């Protein structure tokens, strides 16, 4: 490696170059991660507002202040913005970008300029989506044909935006895969990488391989809308169910893009605040890869009643159970990590523990949906809505917030206010459960989803859910404001390694210097060797 001028005292990646030009042309993975963070939070807020509007309308039966078309637009926008603009880029774009090179002892990702281009492609897609809001679509985020071919709303611009966003995802995934393969520091074998790196790697594989399929499917949808070639239009000899197959071929793996990195974050937090190795590290890593692979094989469990053959339905049901088991294994391993540990109930640890509880609910409600006879009842009801909010919000979003708190000292060089963050945590936890537990009940009662209006018997649960939604929203606002405030005005400086963690990212300064490490680090053990060694190696 060529010699660099030694970094001056107090100089870090935030202050070594100043001015907006240095940020928007920066190929530094840490700065790019932060730029993603601000974009993502913006869209989280917009998507969240759409949700609150929906919940206000749904608080009582009958029309409150929206008409059916406006409501349909609201739930479509909530889904499309939250999924394509927030949670799919999600943890990989923010924490993956920031931490991946740090955790493997590298100076940057494999293709830093490509990384910057990924961000600009994301921004282009985001701008297109914002313009699409001028004629907002009402097809649902799933764009099912033939309705999406017929509706007069701005399907063209929104699907084009999703296509562009897909490119950003593909390029990021590609970048991360090459980074993990080629840029690990000396001594960092695959089995000495932190689980967050394994998770990001598995996610990157899914991003790279699954996204092109949905990209092409959306292009076909546009071509169908304008040229009427007939691939999805039954009046032209086409098959609407084909669209569903192509769409879900990506959209099932995408949920693993959302949640696998969150699994990785939980796997980082629990050992640190239990002062114990991550229990069953190897199994956790293999389970992660297993979920990524099997996740490609189960897509039609979203289509059990769509008109697929009974044989196909049975196959997809059985194999969906195959993806539940590795997840269960991980949960057992996380909890076992805490056994005989020395537990600190810091904010990240609280979020990680909440994750375990929320994901137990998410995973077990998934069992109902995987079970063929039961899914016939639950498909397209509120039960599904509650299930996927537990996985995506209770899983991925909680993971992201946990990670933002955990690595806050590293990213900003400051500490946040622990008391405020714990209050925010409580609001988020209570609000989230109050929003979505009643929705399981609604599903049991048989209430379908995407309904503007409903029969009066469903009203009580809807009222509870609306109250919960506002508490939830308030909790997130509280948490984010606390982090922003602490960064901007906080006085407590963070040490290099405030939690005495063993992984590499804590070996560099808080915040890190521009090139991450002064000298190339080496490792000789995995980053979870906490505690006193036991006889027999502890197996």
């Amino acid at each position: 490696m060529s010699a660099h001028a030694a970094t001056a005292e107090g100089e870090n990646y935030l202050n070594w170059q100043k001015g907006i030009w240095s940020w928007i042309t920066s190929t530094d993975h840490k700065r790019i991660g932060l730029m993603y963070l601000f974009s993502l939070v913006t869209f989280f807020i917009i998507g969240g507002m759409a949700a609150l509007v929906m919940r206000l309308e749904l608080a009582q039966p009958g029309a409150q202040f929206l008409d059916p078309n406006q409501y349909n637009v609201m739930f479509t926008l909530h889904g499309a913005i939250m999924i394509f603009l927030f949670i799919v880029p999600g943890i990989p774009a923010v924490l993956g970008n920031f931490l991946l090179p740090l955790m493997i002892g590298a100076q940057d990702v494999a293709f830093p300029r490509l990384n910057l281009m990924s961000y600009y492609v994301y921004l282009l897609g985001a701008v297109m989506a914002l313009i699409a809001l001028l004629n907002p679509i009402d097809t649902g985020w799933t764009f099912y044909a033939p309705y999406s071919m017929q509706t007069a709303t701005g399907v063209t611009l929104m699907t084009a935006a999703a296509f562009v966003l897909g490119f950003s995802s593909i390029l990021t995934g590609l970048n991360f895969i090459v980074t993990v393969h080629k840029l690990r520091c000396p001594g960092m074998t695959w089995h000495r990488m932190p689980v967050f790196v394994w998770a990001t790697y598995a996610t990157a594989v899914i991003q790279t391989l699954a996204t092109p399929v949905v990209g092409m499917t959306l292009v076909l949808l546009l071509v169908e809308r304008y040229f009427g070639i007939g691939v999805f239009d039954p009046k032209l000899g086409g098959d609407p169910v084909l669209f569903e197959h192509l769409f879900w071929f990506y959209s099932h793996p995408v949920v693993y893009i959302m949640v696998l990195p969150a699994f990785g974050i939980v796997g980082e937090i629990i050992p640190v605040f239990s002062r114990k190795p991550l229990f069953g590290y190897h199994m956790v890593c293999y389970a992660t890869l297993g979920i990524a692979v099997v996740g490609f094989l189960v897509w039609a469990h979203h289509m059990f009643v769509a008109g697929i053959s009974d044989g196909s339905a049975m196959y997809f049901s059985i194999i969906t159970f195959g993806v539940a088991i590795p997840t269960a294994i991980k949960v057992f391993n996380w909890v076992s990590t805490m056994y005989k540990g020395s537990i600190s109930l810091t904010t990240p640890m609280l979020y990680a523990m909440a994750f375990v509880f929320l994901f137990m609910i998410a995973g077990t409600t998934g069992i109902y949906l995987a079970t063929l006879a039961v899914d016939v009842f639950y498909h397209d009801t509120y039960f599904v809505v509650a299930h996927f909010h537990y996985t995506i919000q209770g899983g991925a979003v909680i993971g992201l917030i946990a990670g933002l708190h955990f690595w806050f000292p590293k990213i900003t060089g400051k500490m946040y206010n622990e008391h405020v963050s714990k209050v925010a945590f409580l609001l988020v936890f209570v609000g989230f459960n109050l929003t979505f537990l009643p929705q399981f009940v609604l599903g049991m009662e048989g209430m379908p989803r995407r309904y503007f209006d409903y029969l009066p018997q469903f009203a009580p649960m809807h009222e509870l859910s609306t109250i919960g939604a506002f508490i939830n929203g308030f909790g997130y606002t509280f948490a984010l404001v606390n982090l922003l405030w602490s960064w901007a005005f906080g006085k407590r400086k963070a040490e290099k390694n405030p939690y005495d963690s063993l992984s590499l990212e804590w070996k560099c300064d808080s915040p890190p210097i521009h090139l991450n490490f002064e000298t190339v680090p080496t490792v000789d053990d995995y980053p979870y060797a906490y505690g006193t060694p036991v006889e027999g190696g502890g197996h």
Partner: protein
Amino acid sequence: MFRYLPEQASEVAPRIDWLHNLITDISVFFTVVICGAMLYFAFRYRKRDGVDHETPQIRGSNLLEVIWTVVPTIICCYIAYYGVMIYKDMVAFKKDAVVINAVGRQWAWDFEYENGKKTNNEFAVPVGKPVKLILSSTDVLHSFFIPAMRVKKDAVPGMFTSLSFTPVKTGEYTSFCTEYCGKDHSAMLATLKVLPEAEYERWLNDRTDELLAAAMSPVELGKKLYAEKGCNACHSLDGAKIIGPSFLKLYGQERECESGNTFTADEEYLRDSILNPRHEIVKGYPAQLMPVFEGQLDEREVKGLVAFIRSLDGSAPVVEEVAQEEEVAVVDPSTLSPEERGKWIYENKLCITCHTLDGSRLVGPSFKNAYGRQGKLADGSDYEANDEYITESLRNPGAKVVEGYAPAMPPYGAGQLSDDDIAGLIAWMKTVK
């Protein structure tokens, strides 16, 4: 938990609920155990006095990994197995099933029975017998969900899907559309009536609605279809633009279309616009939105709609819901002679819709030379059209149906035809030669 599930109105519902509750028990058990352990560890092993205590560097346990891989796998296999087996029963072929076609469209359901009876947004089935719905759609994806029966299937345009169930309780149940289909997706409810066998048969053979429709004038028929087929969702009658052009004063106007061609909204144009709306869209209106009615409306219905649109010339005040006025009989039939009375009844009580006077066959036998006619019944026995037979055929038409005719005639109870009325009818029928 399970008390939130709807009542178990189908044969398979108890089994599905059993599996559902089994999953609930297992899920609650594991969630409580795991989260309980987590909370217990968090408490028992908490940091005391701000100082970490010594922890053992346990890296894992191969034995535990095996146990907690194998045990969940076995549990999942068990659940998956029953999920598949119960599903197989749900979709199994049942020979004596009542088969009903259900077609979804934006935003209503049309049902058609094997005997030709058509209903809209409500349908009936006999209790205790297997029912099979053959589903399809005329426009976008819909889905038919009956919570009480625990069944659901998507209605896909361009193909047929089916769902089966066996109702075990009489009652009224709601069905929902469970595949997002546009503006009024949440309003697309239908009612399922599960009736005792005999009542179901009567309901099935009661075609008065259709007979009434058959007797309507074209404009009345058009007005009825305007609401029934959902035109009212997009086309107003008062000049306001909803989504498509208003029908008020539409007839005869010049329209310029996206293709650049100009048309006059005459019979031909309106007909084309109903049957094949994608063909020429008027400038300024969204393309691809209006459902295509080719194959869904017969000739008479299309003519009715066109006549109705034509009638909206602004001369008569347009009220969407016009109460069906009771036919005020100018003539009081009781003042007529028996033969005249019979003829009046024939013309005003709908007999004319199914029975001709010239010997040609409609739905029922012609009245020409009917009195005294002899022949065979559907069950093979003989009949003679005497006073007794005609009276019975009016009061209880399903009892003795002539061979080769459908049991489609509605009954005329004492409230509809008095004994004197029937006497008049018989007297008149004797004169029909």
